[in-house]
């Protein structure tokens, strides 16, 4: 099991979500985050210009079985890209264990639906 953390543009979220769905990744969590990076927005408030480097982003957290790892990365990379500075990052890390609260199932089988 791996955890994929992807920091994407807020405006790309719908596309990424649909792309993940089309590729069979139907479970994940996300929240609003802000990013400090190279992309900047300049603003003026009451005559004081300020250069905010904090851009609104969506932070996706997806735990996948190892077999789905590459597919998920590729899907996100493809659907979140605009080519302009500020497209975001994907980070991969290890997950030791996963538990489905509803059933108590653990391990890989907590990550997909058996039918």
């Amino acid at each position, binding site marked *: 099991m791996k955890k994929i953390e992807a920091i994407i543009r807020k405006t790309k979220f719908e596309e990424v979500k649909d792309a993940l769905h089309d590729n069979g990744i139907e479970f994940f969590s996300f929240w609003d985050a802000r990013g400090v990076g190279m992309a900047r927005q300049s603003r003026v*408030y009451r005559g004081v210009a300020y250069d905010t480097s904090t851009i609104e982003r969506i932070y996706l957290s997806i735990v996948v079985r190892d077999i789905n790892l590459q597919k998920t990365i590729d899907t996100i990379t493809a659907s979140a890209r605009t080519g302009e500075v500020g497209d975001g990052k994907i980070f991969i890390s290890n997950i030791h264990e996963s538990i489905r609260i509803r059933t108590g199932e653990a391990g890989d089988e907590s990550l997909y639906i058996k039918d």
Partner: protein
Amino acid sequence: MEGLTISIDTIWILVAAALVMFMQPGFALVESGFTRSKNTANILMKNLMDFSIGSMGFWLIGYTIMYGEDVGGFIGKMSLFFNSDAINGVPDKASLMFQTVFAATAATIVSGAVAERTKFSAYLIFSVAITVIIYPISGHWVWGGGWLSELGFHDFAGSTVVHSVGAWVGLIGAAMVGPRLGKYGKAGEPKAIPGSNLALGALGVFILWFGWFGFNPGSQLAAAGEENAVAISHIFITTNLAAAAGAVTAMFVTWMKYKRPGLSITLNGALAGLVAITAGCDIVSPGGAVLIGIIAGVILVFGVAFIDRVLKVDDPVGAVSVHGLSGAAGTLLVGLFSTTEGLFYGGGTTLLGIQAIGVLAVAAWAMGLGFILFFILKKTIGIRVSRRVEEEGLDVYEHGESAFN
């Protein structure tokens, strides 16, 4: 005695003007509430500006174009810098004030229809045009002694003259600027883009309802004397009942049509009732007002669906259904429900015919000029913001400021 009569009428008109002015934040809140928060500063700015620019433009030339000496039934004789202390029933400046806030109402309706994707600079130019050209000219036809008033067209407080004019221009604008990104799926199916803050939206509707007690009863333009006292009381009742009926009807219709009673459509329903009663608030009975409100509530729900699904015009706040369809319906219904000349009261179809002519003529005018206007703007400075700006919000790119921090 004479002096007191003037005073009473003047107070009435000025208080009404203040109430109608207060409809501006009503519109601003409805539009802000029904759209996304990344465009709120833009919406507020548009509402503030159409009122400000409109106030100046209508004083500068708009008023005389509308109410100046009639030229061929089509337009009033323009004169600059209206500044008269004469009294015609009420002081001329009281009339100017009252008419100014009406003109601004017409202008501000468009703002909602084209929200979340229109260039601010184009909006400003357009806003001048509607207040000094489009609105005053068709307004002259009906209220300034032009050809429609000669014909006997009855639009007491402006279902057609004010509301529909704004809505038809808005319809053309919304169509020409195109739907918001993501509003229609690949198969052309409409998607929901939920409004950011229905609490502000609801407050806006209540404010509008409140302001309408200036809009309609104020249009009596007098309050002195028994007759006027009865008339304005009557207008309060019809206005309030139609709004109530519109809201209740819209709620039940959505409940049946979509399983649950949705707030945003119900809010629109109240407005639809208000717009519809505006034309005939003086000459329909309270019962008639309830029926007009009911009809408006039904039209509203189906109108929103029709514009969204069939016309595929993206009108984020429902301005076209509320002000256009309900305005037209309300104007026509005068031909049925007028207690003096209406079909249901034995008045035959004459008035109904005249009402239809008026509705169509004003619609043609507003759409025609709206088309020319947006066409010119599109070919010159452009009317739509870039994809990037639309995606990230007009607030930051057009105004450098976000509304919420």
